[in-house]
């Protein structure tokens, strides 16, 4: 890998973004790469916007991704994609967005998926829309698995230079045993997207 690989995860507090960040970092370690992540805690978790950074390659210095420096932006909530456009550059950044909208408290007019798509098009040429929350809710009844589904999607579509096996091992290292099955199943279920 020549270039550092930079991932932004964005979404809303409570969606499991910190665990997802740990999983990605662990998978990078398993593949013997250097890795750095950055996250915020405290008040930022109370249902507010959450944004984490993951960077891996041979040697990583900054824990933060620079403006326009993201290779992949994964959004667990569609409106949050608008919040992280500063990390996107039209030439290089891929967006992977869950077609799921959580209205912002006190805001009467929630933007539609179409409106968000239009905006994001200004920042990226490659945008994937996946109804991850809908899919996992239907299949497991648990929307918090949307992140792991998106991660599966990214791996099987080759949007992330990490191996399937590394992620599976990382899930086991990061999560308590009782959650392994559900997460591994959800992760692999994204394989069907490969053929699409």
């Amino acid at each position, binding site marked *: 890998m020549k270039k550092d690989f930079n991932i932004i995860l964005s979404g809303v507090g409570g969606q499991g973004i910190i665990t997802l960040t740990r999983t990605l970092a662990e998978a990078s370690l398993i593949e013997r790469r250097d890795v750095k992540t950055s996250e915020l*805690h405290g008040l930022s978790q109370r249902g507010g916007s959450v944004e984490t950074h993951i960077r891996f390659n041979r040697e990583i210095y900054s824990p933060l991704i620079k403006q326009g420096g993201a290779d992949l932006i994964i959004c667990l909530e569609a409106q949050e994609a608008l919040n992280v*456009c500063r990390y996107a550059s039209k030439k290089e950044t891929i967006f992977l967005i869950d077609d799921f909208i959580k209205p912002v408290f006190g805001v009467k007019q929630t933007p539609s998926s179409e409106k968000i798509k239009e905006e994001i098009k200004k920042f990226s040429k490659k945008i994937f829309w996946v109804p991850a929350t809908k899919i996992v809710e239907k299949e497991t009844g648990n929307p918090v698995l949307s992140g792991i589904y998106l991660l599966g999607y990214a791996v099987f579509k080759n949007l992330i230079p990490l191996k399937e096996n590394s992620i599976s091992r990382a899930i086991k290292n990061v999560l308590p045993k009782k959650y392994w099955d559900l997460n591994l199943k959800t992760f692999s279920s994204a394989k069907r997207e490969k053929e699409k």
Partner: protein
Amino acid sequence: MRILKNKGKLILLGNEAIIRGALESGVKFVSTYPGTPASEIGNTMSYIAQKAGVYFEFSTNEKVAMEAAAGASFSGLRSLVAMKNFGLNVASDFLLPLVYSGIKGGMVIVVADDPGCSSSAQSEQDSRALSLSANIPTLTPATPQECKDFTKFAFEISEKYKIPVMLQTTTRVALQSGIVSLNKIARPRKKAKFIKEPHRFVTMPPRVLEMKKEVLEKIKKIQNEYSEKSLLNKVSGGCHSSPNSKEKEVSKSSEIGIITSGVSYLYAKESLKELKLDLPVLKLAFFNPLPEEKIKRFINPPAGGLKKVLVIEELEPYLEREVERFAREVNPKLQIFGKNLLPWVGEFKPEYVTGAVAKVAEKKWGVSQPKLPVFPKRFPQLCPGCPYWFVFQGIKKAVNEREVIFGGEIGCYMLAGLPPHHLQDYLYCMGSSIGIAHGIKKTTNQKLITFVGDSSFFHAGIPALINTVYNKSNPLIIIMDNKSTAMTGHQPHPGVGKTGMGEKTTAIKIEALVRACGVRNLKIIDPINQKDFIKTVKEFLEKKEVSVIIARRPCIFVK
């Protein structure tokens, strides 16, 4: 409990790496008061303490936490105390004389600053100021690996010179994760004994002035024996090996140098990579004492040729001022850049640093500024079902919001200031809402309600309550008793009846304390009983003496 693994590599947060460093140093006593961005130190300790055989506590506040850690150190054990930036203000009353007297077992004080205030209200404090005024040796790690290594190094220095050592992190260090190589966990010394030594820990004049002299001597020694020699204060890039020492020397061809520390170092290296520049960088591990001779040699290299220096540091320009001072002496023509190119307010972003480096190097560099989308801001919210919803809702029904002043404090209930509540007219540090309320009530005839959290009340609210009662004013104080220090991650507090190690203990009753402070108008209400709550608010607002409502309903995460 992977953090207790014996060898190999782990991904750790800076905060977790500090604990690992302490365990590898044989720490036996750890205390803290929860505060982001240092909270994981307590949370992780609480989880592993029993198994690791280390005593751990969530103390009532940071001053008490530091005093407790000092007591363990006086008894010969290695101790660590952790807090966020403002915690050091609370503890500073004890910190300064503690540095004077010195300690016995190695003692490390971890302080996490929060440039940009991503998890702090109050101020954007640079705790290095307190490092200077307390004359406490201070190390500033940049990565999780350094968090571990510097913690060990801090214990070594602390015990050798019998002085507490501060480890200062910032949000992007404390909450940065990265790969950490593990070494063996040390077996802590088991026996603790306080040995009576006349006046060793008694800071009475005139001995106290001798102590100050001793501190300055210790600092000088640490400077000469560690800071000047340590390869942790290192030069990289644009330099060559020196024939006489392990140190690298700035090459003659280098006209520009960078001096930096902490996470800013990582941004500096990143910017050099991006700009394809090979400039010498002096990374300072020691903030106090600074390696003065090493800095002078860097800005006035034996080979000559250095014309410009860029100092990269977040918050206050403490390093920059020192570099200016040294340059006047050894290289007066040196051009010094720092806060003239980088922001004094808020945290750095990598591109800010790249922009500054490019400017000093006179290299063309720009980052396109596309028009970012406008989107609705997602404010943090009280969780669905949070008891505070009932308190705020009840208040709105009980009073005319425009006619009542609302005081706030630090905790989940500071969300009172955000939509949809808008019940906040002032907000400062823990305990302050009651103190300020007293001043306002003494001088005006306006109605006033203050909100204070249960943990905050124990932390710093009690002296203010006593003052209010004793000096006869009459605010309505609502103690938001949710049985948890919720915002920082649901740590227990003295009202909970469970210690940091998970043991049962006597729960301190808030109502008993309030009564003992002389409050006669007191009511404990579950705010879900809106009728009772609203009626009591109305009634208490008319009282001539202080009144207190304990709004008691556990946080939804308390099991």
